[in-house]
């Protein structure tokens, strides 16, 4: 899934110099490369796509091939400063499990996802078609996404699961959205912690 640069920049703001970072669904390692360059992090990525593993290796990324839906059991509690999942949460089956694992192995979690409640998506559904947009670039028949949720849905899950939302930023095509993000934002980025 193509990640937006503004997603990277927001995430980088929340990462301190020299942190230990885990990027789940790291793709070609673009975000980790960005964080290594701008924050000198010690970064590891988890990916399960053989093609992307090869790209990571060519880019010198510490990539670990694993199925994230099966958890992060190999990592010690609290080992990472930040565990990041950029635009991949909607492709996980075990949403609650992976959020719990992220906050087990990391002090904080950073999560971004496409907002299915975005007005253009709603408009598409009202017109009788599943949404296809910059944040949801796939057709219904070839999408890797398996969970379809809105900003409000996600925040309700956090409340229910005892996950603390430290910070939320919402965007429409790179523009920050402050008012009514569940309707006006296409992507949301969260900084999460434990109670």
């Amino acid at each position: 899934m193509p990640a937006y640069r503004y997603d990277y920049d927001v995430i980088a703001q929340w990462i301190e110099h020299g942190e230990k970072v885990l990027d789940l669904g790291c793709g070609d390692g673009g975000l980790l490369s960005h964080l290594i360059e701008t924050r000198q992090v010690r970064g590891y990525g988890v990916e399960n796509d053989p093609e992307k593993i090869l790209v990571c290796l060519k880019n010198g990324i510490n990539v670990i091939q694993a199925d994230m839906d099966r958890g992060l059991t190999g990592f010690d509690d609290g080992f990472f400063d930040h565990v990041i999942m950029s635009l991949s949460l909607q492709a996980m089956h075990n949403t609650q499990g992976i959020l719990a694992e992220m906050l087990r192995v990391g002090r904080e979690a950073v999560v971004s996802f496409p907002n299915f409640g975005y007005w253009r998506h709603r408009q598409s559904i009202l017109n009788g078609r599943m949404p296809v947009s910059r944040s949801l670039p796939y057709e219904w028949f070839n999408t890797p996404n398996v969970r379809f949720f809105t900003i409000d849905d996600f925040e309700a899950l956090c409340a229910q699961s005892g996950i603390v939302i430290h910070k939320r930023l919402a965007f429409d095509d790179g523009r920050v959205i402050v008012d009514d993000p569940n309707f006006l934002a296409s992507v949301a980025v969260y900084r999460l912690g434990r109670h």
Partner: protein
Amino acid sequence: MTESQSTCQSIGIVAPQTAHFEEVLSLRSGARLDGYELVFETYGTLNAARSNAVLVCHALSGSHHVAGRHAGEKEDSGWWNNLVGPGKPLDTGKFFVIGVNNLGGCHGSTGPRSINPATECPWGADFPFITVEDWVDAQARLADKLGIESFAAAIGGSLGGMQALSWTLQYPERVRHAAVIASAPKLTAQNIAFNEVARQAILTDPDFHDGHFYVHGTVPERGLRLARMVGHITYLSDDAMGEKFGRSLRHGKAAYSYDAEFEIESYLRYQGDRFSRQFDANTYLLTTRALDYYDPALSHAGDLTAALAAARAGFLVVAFTTDWRFSPERSREIVYALAHNGRDVAYAEIDCAAGHDSFLLDDPQYHAVLAAWFGRIEV
């Protein structure tokens, strides 16, 4: 010569060399070797900075003959010929690759078949126990002799992977990268159990003569054959065996005999026979023992992360989904222990049907992973 041949060639004819060592080698068992020889081969050219050397560590039945062919052979016979050569993933146009027959081996290095200077008879069962760490010490002395201060990489599969890993712990400043393939930080009880069955087959063969069969003029072929047959079953996956042999009968129908009725029996017998004529029983025993004993975490109260804290190399760990003898779980233990030490490590889990033997094959993703990783190594 076509384009593809010119970019990916055989190393061609190679010749083994022998290095003599006079200085005493103290072994982990407490024994010592007062002098020994190591047989080795090299491929490619050592650069002026002596910074492009890669050590290939062999597994149970491997040898120094990693790539190419010996004079008089028609076909390439190196056991990792598909990996090592010009334009191959371990590219001899870039790297100076060294294969060495381990101490205690039976392909030319000092081992149980060699003459014990104290008795002027073959060592046989009196050859000292050798550990993975001892092998690495001996390899380091070979590196000294070749003027290699630090290896660009050490690589090995299975038991060879244990040596590559051990290099990073024993000589962290002398190996910049390590590829640990289809390996484990220690054997499981089940794995030791398989080794024990293989050893018992040899030890109880009447032709074994307590390891002194050389002077009796016998060879414990039955024991070696059984040992290899058991081993072979564990190196293949159930699926691979099913696909290759299934329940095919050699004569199309049951003959009601104990001859090789099924194709799988015929295959195992062939592999066992071939191996028993080539391999040394004492080498088999001591090598499986080295496998059993290997456990770098033992001296750290079982804490593998603490054990790997000494490593400085950048790692590639590779496992194969159908390998149940050295399963991906074992490789992941190494990966997580390295990550917890903040070391550079990449891990690839290759979806290959061939079981443990996959590490010797040329699965496209596997070789692409190795090519990408070796391609990043600066020399």
